[in-house]
């Protein structure tokens, strides 16, 4: 029979805090890309039109360059980057192929509704080498998606349009309820972009892809409202320990 003398103090439950779920997914995805050989690079969130648009073959007439889609700052001298691609551009202009870069971070678009926020996170990868082709891109994207989800994931490639890749594709996965969900954009780097970065586009070709981190976080954690991530509600955050 136990006595009061034997009675120990109750265990103190762990009261650790949590990393933000978006940063957890960001790290997780960067880790996957690192395993494939991608080296992480970073760059500024306030960018020039040259790096955010021109170098990426997004022409002056492209709808994305309008004031209603992009935040401009300091009398239009700079802007808040609308994607993480200018990070890749900055790294490419200082590097000789073969190289494989990944970059992830905050991006800004002039959106604010129940499914879009003015700030969200992207992760991108680019690989430039001799003879990189669309069949290689498909191989890599399949492997990346299998790593994020699982080997049995059903994947669909659809033609799409991005000024910085040609051919371009959007990639869907089949959800449990039988719906195709768009999760990734990719393509063969437009030779004009390579030329802009002083890379010989006759000798080298590249592949590139990008994912929305919130999208992946919502799918992996089952979060249905994107705004939850940015309310800083401890009841929410503490679920991601």
């Amino acid at each position: 029979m136990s006595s009061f003398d034997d009675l120990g103090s109750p265990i103190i439950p762990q009261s650790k805090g949590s990393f933000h779920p978006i940063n957890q997914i960001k790290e997780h995805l960067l880790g996957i890309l690192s395993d494939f050989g991608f080296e992480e690079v970073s760059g500024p969130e306030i960018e020039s039109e040259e790096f955010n648009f021109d170098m990426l073959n997004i022409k002056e007439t492209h709808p994305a360059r309008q004031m209603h889609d992009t935040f401009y700052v300091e009398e239009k001298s700079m802007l808040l980057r609308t994607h993480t691609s200018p990070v890749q551009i900055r790294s490419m202009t200082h590097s000789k192929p073969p190289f494989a870069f990944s970059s992830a971070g905050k991006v800004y678009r002039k959106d604010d509704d129940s499914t879009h926020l003015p700030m969200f996170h992207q992760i991108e990868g680019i690989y430039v080498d001799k003879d990189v082709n669309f069949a290689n891109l498909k191989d890599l994207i399949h492997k990346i998606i299998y790593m994020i989800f699982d080997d049995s994931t059903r994947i669909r490639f659809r033609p799409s349009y991005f000024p910085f890749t040609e051919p371009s594709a959007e990639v869907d996965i089949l959800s449990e309820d039988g719906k195709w969900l768009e999760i990734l954009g990719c393509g063969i780097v437009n030779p004009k972009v390579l030329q802009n970065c002083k890379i010989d586009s006759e000798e080298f070709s590249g592949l590139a892809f990008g994912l929305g981190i919130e999208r992946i976080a919502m799918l992996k954690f089952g979060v249905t409202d994107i705004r939850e991530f940015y309310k800083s509600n401890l009841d929410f955050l503490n679920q991601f320990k």
Partner: protein
Amino acid sequence: MKILYKDLLKFLKQEPSASEISESLYQLGHEHILSNEIFDMEFTPNRGDCLSAMGLARDLNIFFGYKDSLEIYEGKIERFNFDFENFSKEACPKISFLNIVIDEAPLKYKDYLDSYFINTGQKKNNFFADISNYLSYEMGQPSHCFDSTKITSNVTFEKKVCDEKFNTLLGTEINLTEENCVFSMNGKIISLGGILGGADTACSNTTKSAIVEFASFRPENILGKTVKYNINSEAAYKFERGVDIALQEKALRRFIQIVRDHSNVVSIEAQYNEYTLENKRELRLDVDKVNKILGTSISKDEFVEFLISLGFDINKNIEIPSFRNDIETDNDIAEEIARLIGYNKIQSKELQIRNKIKKEKKLDIDDIKEKFTEFGFSEVINLPFVTFKTKDSVVIDNPLDKNKKFLRTSLKESLVNNLLYNERRQNDSIKLFEFSDIYSKDNQITKKTKLAFIASGRVSHDYLNFSKKIDKKFLDKILSQIFVEVPTIEEISRNNLDTKISDKIFYVEVDLHKSQIKLPKKQKEYSRIDKFNTYKSVSEYPSSSRDFSFSISKSHVVNEIISYFDGLSQENLKKVFLFDFYKNEKTNEVKLGYRLVFQSFTKTLSDNEIREHVLKILKPVLRKEGVEIPGFESLL
């Protein structure tokens, strides 16, 4: 854009089902929703040529065969001596006018015209405007109809700087500023070219004589105008994406045909603006290059067959059709070929990535973050837009919210708001941190990497720390493990904050590049998530807590009670924790203090409801031998 299944069929040689078409559209990269035999299309911005039933059917040629089945007026058209001058041919190289007179507008439309309005949800206006809208849907050529009795003088077209009010045919008034493409008469603007016509010269139900303008505005002159003036314009949408310049005469003749289908035509006159197509656009025919881009091995014959099916002419070179403004390079051709093969049918080829880039050893920010989480801090991410300006704030030219037009130069405003938000949700132990780059402007824009944290309330909820409040000593202990020199801990006054809580608030903000960190530099290691927990949604209703203290005189019962509460899960019970543990050696009694926190997803719980929950939870405990809850009755 909505396109009817039966309208697509008119242009196809075969008779595929709507779902067969749907599947092919996906293969070609045309996203859509199919319901009730209507395709609600979402085209990528480079495919202006597909913005009509005819254009979309043309892209489907390889699958179902495209046929040009349009019935057009082939008869004689008199020359229209319209006093018009185009002063801005660079903005619109080609403009044609049709003057058509009828004896009476029809009372009823033929099925094909009626069905367009019924099924796409477009509103009918008047006979001529309705034909114009239908034609744009059918062929992709926008047009604008003036009532010719209201055109009383010569008309000019010009791209010019404007500063005047313009009354649209929709009954709205807009203030035109900066450069616009406009049609004018007697010095007054009568139409906003490629976007919307004016009220003064618009057709009505009684119009019997119309002047119809067919034009080819260059996209850059139309872009952004509809957003600027808050106008919804199907024509502008098409011109922004490129309209086939070779289409005008055929569209004009089709317009006449539709009018003739419905009423008696009294006279037809037209004026064609002289324009010859620019040099043929050609690309080298290089199947090897395309195979190299795609990683495929298609034959030259297949290659040629694919391109011909898309309307390309093949001689020594590839001649690009006038409607494909998006095709410029071998990579564009490769995409066309890949679309027709089907992206999903292209065989993957193993890729081994070679990387010459060397990895550097760096400070891993995650190591610092890890330290904070060990002490119970949770990471937040905030938007950078703030209300208050500091002397070096970066200003946003076009903010979403005019009250938040500055970029934060400190993380403080955000973190204080986060703290108050959690306090309002009955949280009494708040420890948050954020790690973010911030930007400020001196002579130029500079970036700083900041780490900040805020803390207030109880140290934690366990029985050792429940009664302790966060203070400088607690924070000092954490900081001294990370920083060589402990940064300043600021106490934030609650005087100007909207709160009734009195716990002290502590705040620390550090510029990471200026601080010496105790943690080692190393090769970055990415933390991977092993198991993804499914998140449970958070209630928006307030929570209520009830505290109970148990006196226990049998030692084995203590452990039973602790395991009971550890495993407790009940509807509306958000949280339960042991906040007090006391062993009285003299009386051989143990005191356990438990807090039960209740919260519903659907309502604010009433005292009665909470009482029910409490009774249900405590009943099994009270049945145990030697357990008392002093003052239990009064607590209820």
